[in-house]
């Protein structure tokens, strides 16, 4: 199991390469893979538990038959079997689907997987409780029989365990004693557990393949290539989304908004992100006064939109935090603060306001931003 998991996880580190759109396939999503891993693990646990439960139940049933105790136990028995059936019939998680992403995983897929895991946990707990209950009643009834049942089960488990590890019976230890002795510590000549050894070979093999793909055949993307792929992919998605939505506000098309909803939304954003430096009333502190007639980077709606969107000098850019619509809202709100004459206002900075002042050279500073 472990090796399998390793393999899946390693495979996931080769995100589908290059041009095609397969990058966000949920199968390659590490979140999805780890969740699937957890589901498989829990499934194995449940199967194991179901086996134990069945053995215990069968044993109990046989014993009950002898004792003629009545139908109640049969019901339990059937219930048990039902449990194990549900356990084995776990729905497979759906894969794919985009839109809302939770760590690049669609919300539906994520919640489905989480609920599958939750259901699995509930089932496992229910089975454990049942086993416990049965064992308890058995204990009261006749411990010997139960012990026998558990012993047989244990034996088969143990032999399976012994087999995969190539264990030798403990009472034959003396045959493989190497005769080394250090302060009473002796050493045995046990063989290497085969799964360990082949696992080791497998990891070496994976390592070679990994290196070969990244640095010889170049069939897997290096960090920067991976970045470029993800950005171009995201840009396409955004374009598609915006074209569907029909929103095309930008610094060339933006207009002053005056509806009370827009101004209220703008105010909320202002209080959250701007008021720290410009004060709640726009009087300015760390940042300049927004209520007076003086402006560093222009007071035209388009200039202000640009200043907020891309930032200037110490003014941070907000394009990665707020949509253009939101930036238009907050710009409109800021314009509404003009002339409010708040107390303790910061002294003027910049040039006095003029109608439609052209953008200064200053305001085109920021370059390196990947514009969607």
């Amino acid at each position: 199991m472990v090796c399998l998991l390793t393999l899946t996880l390693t495979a996931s580190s080769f995100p589908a390469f290059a041009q095609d759109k397969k990058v966000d396939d949920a199968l390659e999503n590490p979140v999805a893979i780890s969740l699937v891993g957890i589901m498989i693990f829990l499934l194995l646990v449940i199967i194991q538990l179901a086996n134990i439960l069945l053995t215990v139940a069968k044993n109990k049933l046989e014993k009950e038959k002898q004792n003629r105790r009545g139908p109640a136990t049969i019901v339990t028995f059937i219930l048990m079997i039902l449990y194990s059936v549900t356990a084995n019939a776990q729905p497979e998680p759906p894969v794919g689907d985009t839109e809302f992403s939770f760590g690049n995983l669609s919300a539906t897929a994520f919640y489905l997987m989480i609920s599958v895991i939750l259901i699995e946990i509930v089932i496992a707990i229910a089975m454990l409780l049942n086993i416990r209950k049965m064992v308890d009643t058995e204990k009261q009834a006749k411990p010997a029989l139960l012990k026998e049942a558990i012993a047989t089960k244990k034996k088969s488990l143990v032999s399976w365990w012994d087999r995969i590890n190539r264990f030798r019976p403990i009472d034959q230890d003396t045959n493989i004693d190497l005769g080394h002795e250090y302060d009473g510590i002796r050493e045995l000549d046990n063989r290497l557990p085969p799964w360990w050894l082949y696992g080791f070979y497998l990891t070496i093999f994976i390592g070679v393949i990994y290196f070969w793909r990244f640095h010889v055949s170049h069939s897997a993307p290096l960090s920067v290539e991976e970045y470029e792929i993800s950005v171009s992919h995201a840009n396409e998605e955004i374009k598609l989304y915006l074209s569907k939505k029909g929103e095309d506000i930008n610094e060339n098309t933006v207009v002053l908004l005056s509806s009370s909803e827009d101004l209220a939304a703008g105010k909320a954003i202002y209080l959250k992100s701007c008021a720290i430096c410009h004060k709640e009333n726009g009087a300015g502190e760390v940042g300049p006064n927004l209520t007076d007639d003086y402006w560093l980077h222009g007071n035209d709606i388009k200039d202000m939109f640009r200043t907020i969107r891309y930032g200037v000098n110490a003014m941070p850019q907000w394009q990665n935090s707020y949509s253009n619509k939101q930036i238009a809202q907050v710009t409109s709100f800021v314009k509404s603060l003009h002339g409010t004459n708040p107390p303790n206002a910061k002294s003027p900075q910049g040039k006095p306001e003029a109608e439609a002042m052209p953008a200064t050279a200053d305001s085109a500073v920021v370059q390196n931003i990947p514009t969607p």
Partner: protein
Amino acid sequence: MTKQPPKTESGNLSVAQTEKFYYDNAIVRAFGFATIAFGIVGMLAGLWAAIQIYYPQSSLGLAPTTFGRMRPLHTNAIIFAFVGNASFAGIYYSLQRLCKSRLFSDRLSWIHFWGWQLIIAAAAITLLMGKTTGKEYAELEWPIDIAITVVWVIFGINMFGTIFKRREKHLYVAIWFYIATWVTVAMLHIVNSFEIPVSFLKSYSWYAGVQDALVQWWYGHNAVAFFLTTPVLGLMYYFLPKAANRPVYSYRLSIIHFWALIFIYIWAGPHHLLYTALPDWAQSLGVVFSIMLIAPSWGGMLNGLFTLRGAWDKVREDPVLKFMVVAITCYGMATFEGPMLSLKSVNAISHFSDWTIAHVHIGGLGWNGFMAFAILYYMIPKMWGTSLYSKKLATNHFWLGTIGIVIYAVPLYWAGFEQSLMWKAFTPEGQLKYQFLETVNSIRPFYILRSVGGAMYLIGAFFMVYNLYKTIRSGVFIANEAAEAAPLIKLPNTKNEYWHRILERKPATMLVLSLIVVALGGLIELIPTFLIKSNIPTIASVKPYTPLELQGRDIYLREGCYTCHSQMIRPFRDEVARYGEYSKAGEFVYDHPFQWGSKRTGPDLAREGGKYPDSWHYNHMYDPSSMSPGSIMPAYSWLLENNLDTGSTAAKIRAMQKLGVPYPEGYANISNKDLMRQADSIAANLKKDKINTASGKEIVALIAYLQRIGRDIKSAPEQVAVSQSNENNK
């Protein structure tokens, strides 16, 4: 069933005459007590730091107790004081018995002991004072580095002296691990500590930027491997079979996993630098060798757990074995998780988040802590000739510790995963969905839970202190434990001896061979990174720091900012959107030491320069929540009061020149003039925003540095040359 060996190798049994000698328990007792004392101190420091993360006021507003200084204190105390002393105690206890000989020299033993404790005391004081090299787990300044080297050599002489005068022909597997530990730690410590002293307690790393990062994580990763893993595996190989009274499961497995482990471990360091500016080929080597590391690590776990075959009933009874079983299991989990975290796709989520912290504490609390507890519970009753005062209390300690680990780790895993996904979330319009602070606030409850788990673990440790105290009171200390064994005499070697048996007779060969095996990986990764130019493409616009910025950078180091802030923007869409253009190798060529960091409790600062006005930084340092409501960053109000020590500027510039930073000839002598000019301009700038500060305060230097970070390629045409430094802030 182990009493009747079918065959016995000749050597000691054939000689009738035995010698009497005494094991030195006094030194083991000393190291054992130091383990307990520093364990408690280190855990307390950790708990305090953990509380500060969600309640920053608990730093009491004092410089020495802020998170940035407590965290290095915690890590150094746990690694070098707690686990270090525990390893020395266990090694000195087991080495004597495995070699059938008293330690080589009592005097060296005690120099080793007191030297190590002095180093720890010096470390604690200097770290709290803010004297640090700024390199994780190697924070100690150069005089202490030299002291560590000397004490380590003394430890080596004592260990090899004991091995050479042994009365046992072959070296047991535990000793192989001790040898590998000694030689590798020596190599790592010396190479990573190359630094150029500026003053008595200040130095700059010899390496810069990418190279410094590679050396540091080659060291950092293998400090985990060879200070926290191999010595403890050695202890496991001695104390587990002793406590369980069972033979070691497989000698073959011991050989294979030992050599594979020490060979492969060394290569894996770059997995701490995935997606960074480190050359891709080095990153890939780190990934590949991490994957291959699973099996060798698990070999140790299997050999430990399988040794318990036939003794599991004892595990139910004996607290020593209980602790060991959980320790080994945690070792197995951590060493499986580690390679998984090295896969790039997983690392993209886990790195810089609390996931890593959880991972490390599975190893630290589970493997190292529980192993240390186990050997203390084993050795102390034996050395006092009595039995443990209360098995029940020890069992309670065990359960409290185990549950503590779970409550510590699970919330942090969750927190790391959740925060990382929040960092990466975009709206469909293409904007980041969450502000950084929102992601921090969403995981605060997990931070609280984590500290509860840690507190439980600590309370468990107090149970142990009481239990051991009562045990000691009930017995009489055996300072010199009598033993006898036949001396080693030269006998013709058995023919057709297994090849490794021959090696086990030759400790010096073993030492050399180990060194070769561990040196290989490091050499192959380090040398090309240093010598091949194309690995770090230079960028013309990247210039050395101005004197004021350099001073500010040293304040950044002193306050341990790197413990919470990274300076490495990885090429991810979300990081570029959040922080700016991803980091390039050529940007760091004058960074002695590099400050990429390993954790983002706060946001990345690699493009902090110019992001906010000077006054923002001033207010933010005085009270972070005034500029970032809900921030968990502590206040640094003393920076506003303290005067900048300009007396050190010239020495710092000269040291940098020696390291190859191209300041003009004789610049050191006039550097303070430039420094004052730039400081005055920042003070004037602050004044515009109604903040009055003298230009000679530390805050001014720090602002200068923060406003510089990442600007060299951000605004390429802007000149930030040394002589015209005041251009920097407009």
